[in-house]
């Protein structure tokens, strides 16, 4: 568990990080969201001591991060940068093996780990001997992620990791990112200014402004229980889409009609968002899709209209702003 307490960092007269405290649970994906200049990157870089705070403390599993040499701390924390920061004079294989070689892993172990990551991140083995400039932006970012994961660190820090990618590549990598087993066990702290990305990847979001955290909570909490106008305003532009993504089928399960035919089509799990379910409609007459609630193994078969109606009933029940 990462615990940040009363963290302060000023650059000249500007307070980049102004007395921030928060906690990140093990295995949680915490997203620091905010506009540029809000202090989110400064905050992230203090976690692996790229920047030293003026005051305040950071502990990981109750141990202060200053208790060990900065190099040792960093070797146990993956770090992914926006512009990937790959070593241009190292091959892909060498780049991925940077931290294992610092930790003096033996050759065979390193090689098999590199191979494993190449497969998990959908890179080809042909890329191993290539240099970073020979890869596409998406491939470079995958290598950057592989490098951060190589030594299997329990914590992963990501600074706008997908910020430099085009939309198509980004949404593809988002899907891979969510599907990656290895990441599910890790504590991830990710910085982004992209609300969509935050909502898609975060377990919890810390919305920042002017060096302070305005609100911390799950995407749904931010949407339906904003603490002030700033939070409301921040999400306003993409509200409908965010809501459809944030509201899970499980949330509206009770408003959906029971029963339905169990024909041989794929089942959509109730943990998915409404948005996900809507995407499955192909739009032909009397079309239904099948939803599965894993908790009680109940299957519901619903039409587009029934789904939307359930969603609107759920919305009505929410506290009005």
């Amino acid at each position, binding site marked *: 568990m990462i615990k940040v307490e009363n963290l302060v960092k000023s650059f000249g007269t500007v307070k980049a990080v102004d007395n921030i405290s928060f906690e990140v649970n093990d295995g949680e994906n915490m997203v620091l969201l905010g506009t540029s200049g809000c202090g989110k990157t400064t905050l992230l870089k203090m976690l692996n001591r790229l920047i030293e705070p003026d005051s305040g403390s950071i502990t990981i599993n109750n141990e202060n991060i200053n208790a060990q040499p900065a190099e040792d701390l960093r070797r146990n924390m993956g770090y992914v940068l926006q512009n990937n920061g790959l070593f241009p004079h190292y091959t892909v294989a060498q780049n991925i093996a940077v931290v294992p070689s610092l930790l003096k892993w033996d050759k065979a172990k390193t090689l098999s780990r590199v191979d494993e990551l190449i497969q998990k991140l959908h890179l080809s083995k042909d890329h191993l001997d290539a240099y970073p400039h020979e890869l596409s932006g998406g491939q470079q970012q995958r290598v950057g992620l592989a*490098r951060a994961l190589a030594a299997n660190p329990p914590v992963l820090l990501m600074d706008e990791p997908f910020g430099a990618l085009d939309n198509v590549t980004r949404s593809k990598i988002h899907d891979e990112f969510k599907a990656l087993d290895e990441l599910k066990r890790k504590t991830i702290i990710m910085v982004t200014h992209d609300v969509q990305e935050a909502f898609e990847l975060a377990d919890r979001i810390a919305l920042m402004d002017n060096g302070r955290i305005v609100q911390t909570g799950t995407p749904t909490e931010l949407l339906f229980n904003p603490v002030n106008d700033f939070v409301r305003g921040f999400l306003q532009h993409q509200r409908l889409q965010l809501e459809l993504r944030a509201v899970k089928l499980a949330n509206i399960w009770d408003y959906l009609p029971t029963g339905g035919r169990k024909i041989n089509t794929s089942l959509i799990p109730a943990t998915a968002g409404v948005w996900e379910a809507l995407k499955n409609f192909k739009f032909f007459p009397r079309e239904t899709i099948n939803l599965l609630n894993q908790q009680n193994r109940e299957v519901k078969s619903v039409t587009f209209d029934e789904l939307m109606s359930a969603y609107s009933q759920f919305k009505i029940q929410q506290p009005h702003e």
Partner: protein
Amino acid sequence: MNEHQQTLFEFMQQQADKLGVQTLQHIGLTFISLLIAVIIGLPLGIYITRQKKISGLVLGIAGVLQTIPSIALLGFMIPVLGIGAKPAIVALLLYALLPIIRNTYTGITGVNPAVKEAAIAMGLNKWQVLFKVELPLAMPVILAGIRTATVINVGVATLASYIAAGGLGEFIFGGISLNNTNMILAGAIPAALLAILFDFLLSRLQRLNFKKIRGAVKAAPVLLVLLACLYFIPSAYGSKLTAGFTPEFMGRQDGNLGLVSKYGLKIHTIVINDAVMYKAAQEKELDVISGYSTDGRLKAYDLVVLDDDKKIFPPYYAAPIVREDALKNFPELEKTLNLLSGLITDSVMTDLNYRTDYLHQTPERVAKDFLQSKNLLKPDKGGKNGIVRIGSKIFGEQYILASIYAMLIKGYTDYDVATKTGLGGTKICFDALTNNQIDFYPEYTGTGLLAILQAPTQTVTRLQASKDSTYNYVQRQFQEKYKIKWLKPIGFNNAYALMMRQKQANELNIKTISDLKRYLEIK
């Protein structure tokens, strides 16, 4: 001029041994200094990327060093480091420093900050960041700096011969002094080729990709040390005494060649510039030097001239040589210049030289005092009837003579004067005269005979005995060949001479060149 005009190729063949030695010395000098410059410049360049506050200061100092003229820099070195390889290497390394420091600094500060940040964030410590990331990425830029430094060094190393450090400059400056184009080219062409070759090789190294460059960079120090060692190969011989001769003296029949053929003198010889030779003799870096019998430093440094008992040094009586055109254009010129004829004897000239060379009086002041003492000084008439252009070679005696002539012309005629002093050696001065860049300059009969006319050996031998026969011969030949007239001799004989420290000569009981030879042959 010669019965047989030697081709460059023949010259190089004939001098192959010397050429080889000089080339090795040249490469050696270049790379010893380069090696040291890298050893100093690279860490310094890295250091100032960490201490940005002093980077401006360090780069500024290195920049200033770069602007000091190379000859001046070599000159500064002599009082501190003497002559020979040491000062030459230090001077060369100072020139090589700036490109290496600057490119190291630029290369490292130019590394993509995201890559550096990633390296730190991966857990590389500061040395690992430097050696695994910053240096490899900055290497092409650093190599470019080393490449620049190498080419600069190959060029500046030609000047090393001025202070007895050898190298291809021996041929180049010897050739300029001796009016020997083949000799100049035999030094200049290999020097140019070396510069081009090293530039090419380093440019290839720079373009190698990252993988190959790692091996190349590891091999480079070894190669550098090997090349630097070349310098020491030729100097593996020695003798009891060390002689320092000017490049000009080395190549002349009435110089080292005559010493070897007529006297059979075998002495460990280094080539050195006239300007530092006397000082080196005084400081016991050299035992025997070539010099001029009227040199003021003879008196200043307590040196003694060895008697030329076999008469290999022909007379060098000084006289103004004038283009005939100029004599026509300036009818009063000849009469005026001849005012000086017979007035300056050997001892007078030595004294005048002593004042400029050792007492550091200006040539103008010395000239004025001299004319005053002879009651020849007249006030400047502010003449407007044309301008007489006086040339002089690049040493004190010629400056004094040029000043005396300038004052005489201004005082006795209606002409104005332009002096073009410091026209290098004989070749440059004489070419300036024949190409109508100057109207006259003081020349020496022996130089006219040997360096300009390049008279055949038999003729030289025949003429050598008497001063008048030499004068008459050159006067006749110059008139025929160049339309240049020798006016009346000034009086002194500034012949070549071998000299030693008075004290040492007395101790060893050496009075003549034959004595010197006998001493050297005693085992």
